[in-house]
């Protein structure tokens, strides 16, 4: 592989992602124009819908919570040199673990249910990542392909469980019964109400706080522990890692278990926080958004938080857009999401090379003076 062109750190972390994002939005604007609406008006509507009201902000952060979990999941695997496309399936199965605790132990006090639900989500998510990880580590099976396959296997398994086993008796739609009230994540407006701040009711809930904690934990883990260092070394160069006495297969297993566990956090927000039951396809693509979030956030927890809020705003703003512009439906959000992944993930070299030339010319000029 060729070494990517060198950029100053601020340009690498700030300028380049902004340029990529800008180009993606311009392309989205062109599409909106083709649809016969004004791009500027559309973006303004989206921004207002997402950030202009308390309700909008609540929904934005609620969506962002899912994306923080899946974004962190993709990032941890990425630091170990692994591309985890299976966050969708891991979140699905992880949510099953959380949901089972809420269904069957949900009458216990909340302070007991919460840690059990977090633990079950993490364990189930990690377990779903374990087989692809083991196959990559010991049998050399390409993890991109196996995690894709495991997404489909997870979907089939969950359909089976919801249709045949977990379904609430006497009901047509494949959903479980509702969780008992002890197993419901406290909503943000209730928590804030207790300390005297009154805000509009939204699905934003305590899981957002847990997602922030997870982000902090990932930062400490990756940059402040021996284990995280070993993970980054193995991800950067597995030959060096072996020479330094780090076992690549242990890194693969460890990184994927953590990755799956993080993806498993999605159920805390989506099921415990909002839906209060297990239902079909509740991750609804958040695992794939996580890839976009990690790519845009440069796999750094702070970047991931920013990118997750941006995507949350995109989702919330998109529903506003589909209300107010009849020619545009929510699918436009998916298009923008895809464009951002394309520009930030696959085409980043397109602008990196000219940018690097620009900076090196500037440096040469400075040296000559």
């Amino acid at each position: 592989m060729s070494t990517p062109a060198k950029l100053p750190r601020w340009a690498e972390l700030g300028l380049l992602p902004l340029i990529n994002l800008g180009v993606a939005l311009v392309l989205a604007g062109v599409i909106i124009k083709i649809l016969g609406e004004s791009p500027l008006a559309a973006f303004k509507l989206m921004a207002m819908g997402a950030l202009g009201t308390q309700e909008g902000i609540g929904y934005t952060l609620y969506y962002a919570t899912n994306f923080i979990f899946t974004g962190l999941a993709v990032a941890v695997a990425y630091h170990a040199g692994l591309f985890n496309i299976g966050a969708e399936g891991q979140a699905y199965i992880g949510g099953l673990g959380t949901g089972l605790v809420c269904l069957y132990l949900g009458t216990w006090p909340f302070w007991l249910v919460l840690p059990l639900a977090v633990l079950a989500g993490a364990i189930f998510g990690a377990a779903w990542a374990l087989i692809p990880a083991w196959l990559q580590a010991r049998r050399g099976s390409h993890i991109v392909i196996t995690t894709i396959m495991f997404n489909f296997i997870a979907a089939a398994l969950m359909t089976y469980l919801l249709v045949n086993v977990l379904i609430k008796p006497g009901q047509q739609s494949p959903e479980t019964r509702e969780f008992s009230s002890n197993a419901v994540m406290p909503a943000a407006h209730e928590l804030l109400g207790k300390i005297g701040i009154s805000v509009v009711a939204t699905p934003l809930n305590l899981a957002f706080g847990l997602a922030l904690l997870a982000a902090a934990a990932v930062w400490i883990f990756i940059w402040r522990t021996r284990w995280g260092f070993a993970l980054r070394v193995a991800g950067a160069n597995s030959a060096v890692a072996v020479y330094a006495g780090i076992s690549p297969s242990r890194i693969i297993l460890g990184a994927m278990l953590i990755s799956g566990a993080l993806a498993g956090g999605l159920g805390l927000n989506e099921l415990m926080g909002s839906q209060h039951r297990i239902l079909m396809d509740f991750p609804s693509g958040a695992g794939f958004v996580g890839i976009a979030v990690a790519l845009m956030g440069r796999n750094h927890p702070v970047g991931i938080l920013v990118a997750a809020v941006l995507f949350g705003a995109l989702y919330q703003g998109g529903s506003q857009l589909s209300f107010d512009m009849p020619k545009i439906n929510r699918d436009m959000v998916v298009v923008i999401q895809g464009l951002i992944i394309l520009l930030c993930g696959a085409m980043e070299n397109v602008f990196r090379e000219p940018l690097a030339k620009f900076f090196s010319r500037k440096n040469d000029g400075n040296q000559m003076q």
Partner: protein
Amino acid sequence: MEIYTLIVLLLAATIRVATPLLLAAMAGLFSERSGIIDLGLEGKMLGAAFAAAAVSATTGSVWLGLAAGILTAVALALVIGYACITHQGNQVVAGMAVTIIVVGLGPTLGLAWFNLGGQTPQLDGVGQRFIGVVWPWAEAAREVPLPGLLYAELLSGQNLLIYFAAAIVPFSAWIFYRTRFGLRLRAVGENPHAVDTAGISVNGLRYQAVIISGVLCGFSGAYLSTAASSGFVRDMTAGKGYLALAALIFGKWKPWPTLGACLLFAFTDALATRLQGVVLPMVGVVPVQFILALPYVLTVILLAGFVGQAVAPKSIGVPYSKEK
């Protein structure tokens, strides 16, 4: 006789399901043997399905629809090529991104152009769909029990794209193993440096490969929206692109075994449809989801190297640059 009819009908269903799978898997074969991971199969198929249905609905000609489908899929393939071949971008990300864009763009354009909630209009006019070609004496042959029914149900009555898909397998095998282009294509996926040293353009070969992949995905997508059904609906590929990728891997990146894998996967699908809600003695209601998950499970088992070995082209996923 009853069981025999059932088997023939099951085989006929297998062929119908296998066709788009096979076309997409062959598309992936060209791309992946040249060293470019083809995760964009799903997106290219879906894009082609939309374009084919939209153009066929507007112009009334299924052939124009097919052309539009091919052009769309090739354009998407070129986006992937530009990102991954010219600019050495991440091939997995590029394929996924294109797929996600198309998943959103199809219904978006569909809503804007046809105002039917993201679908295209029903293709019920004459010449708007690929319909079965009935071979001579098919109806008469149906009366003859064994070979007659096979002739009437399997050989006759299929649409042109199915015959095209059947022909593409030996043709691909011939290209890969009997032509200079095929030799170079296989070489560039294994050792691009050697190909470069021989004075052949690595990027040129890879661009040709992704364009061929686009063309075949165009046929596959057009089959879905203008032959298998009458119009485009949201997410109509429903993971078939990834299933095709699994078939390609299950077929060990070789044309004939890939055909076998497509038929096997299609058969499980046809079987699952047939067994939906059926109560079998001893087993009870068949858990259809497990049959549907079987292709993915089998592919994982194969990748794990427990039954035989699937060896990917050596340089797959590695961007090529001359400097090294």
